[in-house]
């Protein structure tokens, strides 16, 4: 039986992990290679690195970080942030990513998902989507550029369309919950998991294994968390032990 995944996420800038609340107020959260090794030893099922630097020098630094993490890691690594086209994706894969996440560029030019999946395979292409609640009940809007641009795009429709264009997985981040530790947006997870067939990674708002259990019950295939692992509040080992005792199949 396929196990549910627990995925620590490292937002990286200038070779360091940073973390904020709703994508702002960033603080230092450690060395990516040291953290990656620790997370693998704790039983992390995958790692995600998001490059949140905005400059070309920052991009070069991120590639060096990806290469250093890959050399130390023997579990899958997804990398995203600033992927505009095939060349960016290729550079990340060659540095050591196994999957590439695209976000803003796919919203602005959806055919990018098809271009990538045809050349590197669907299983390499992750659609990262940041969404905010709309005024309507059970409706969400895609936001881009670190939450500063509201696109007017319906999140559920975008998920379905992206799947058809070649996305192999959806990293679904609730902008409302990011860094708040209030729990994942369960209504969002439930709605999206019914609409698409590709796996969904829940992101934004985790504070405990109880939140992760809720996310799995709402239909998530994997859960992503940053703050609670970086701050040492809990470990992947502890989280997986709790999930297992609640009846969730996890890799021990």
């Amino acid at each position, binding site marked *: *039986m396929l196990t549910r995944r627990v995925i620590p996420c490292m937002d990286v800038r200038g070779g360091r992990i940073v973390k904020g609340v709703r994508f702002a107020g960033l603080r230092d959260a450690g060395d990516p290679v040291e953290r990656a090794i620790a997370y693998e030893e704790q039983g992390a099922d995958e790692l995600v690195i998001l490059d949140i630097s905005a400059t070309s020098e920052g991009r070069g630094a991120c590639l060096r970080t990806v290469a250093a993490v890959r050399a130390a890691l023997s579990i899958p690594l997804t990398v995203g942030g600033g992927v505009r086209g095939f060349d960016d994706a290729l550079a990340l894969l060659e540095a050591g990513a196994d999957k590439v996440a695209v976000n803003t560029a796919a919203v602005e030019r959806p055919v990018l998902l098809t271009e990538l999946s045809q050349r590197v395979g669907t299983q390499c292409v992750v659609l990262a989507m940041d969404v905010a609640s709309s005024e309507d009940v059970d409706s969400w809007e895609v936001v881009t550029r670190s939450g500063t641009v509201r696109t007017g795009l319906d999140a559920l429709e975008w998920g379905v369309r992206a799947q058809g264009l070649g996305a192999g997985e959806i990293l679904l981040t609730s902008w409302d919950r990011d860094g708040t530790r209030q729990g994942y947006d369960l209504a969002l997870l439930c709605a999206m998991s019914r609409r698409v067939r590709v796996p969904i990674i829940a992101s934004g708002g985790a504070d405990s294994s109880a939140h992760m259990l809720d996310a799995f019950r709402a239909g998530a295939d994997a859960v992503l968390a940053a703050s609670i692992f970086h701050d040492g509040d809990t470990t992947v080992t502890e989280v997986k032990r709790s999930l297992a005792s609640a009846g969730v199949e996890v890799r021990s």
Partner: protein
Amino acid sequence: MRACVVRTGVANIASIAAALTRCEIEPVITNDRAAIEDAELLVLPGVGSFASGMRAIRDAGLDGVIIERVMSGRATLAICLGLQMLARESEESPGVEGLGVLDASVTRFPEGVRVPQFGWNCVASESDTAPFESGYAYFANSYRFATAPAGWDAAYTDYAGAFVSALWRGRVLACQFHPELSGPWGLRLIRRWARAEEVSPC
């Protein structure tokens, strides 16, 4: 110890190279036919589509040497699409001929499960000849063999029913999962394959 890694277009070659290095095997990434023919150890990776992988192999003129190595049981580790390309054909790319070493077709997972299968699933090695112990391996696939071709030993995994997660014969080991991404379990598998070690009974 060195291993040739076939360059099949875009793939997660960096992860394979990193895993080999951690197993004290020097990776040599190439699509040179003579190097692949002579290699003591050969890794046939693959991510991407069946059609693009086959095109990369045919364009480099490597189909003959890979078929010859696998048929004669020389040390070859095929991974994910690398395993699927050994088949006659795949539902993923109708009309594209595979290497045809395995008398089998690759088919898509049935309805009712999420596709691609992403994540860790249990590989059960019930056979005495299995070159690895049972354990969790990392999968990233939408297609698979539903049954093992004749003449090969197999391990199975469950996802909407049993599918073939590994095949072996001689020193050929073909995995649907990614040993290079399967943690210490995967690294042990690579070491044993490279050194032709037997699995010690627990």
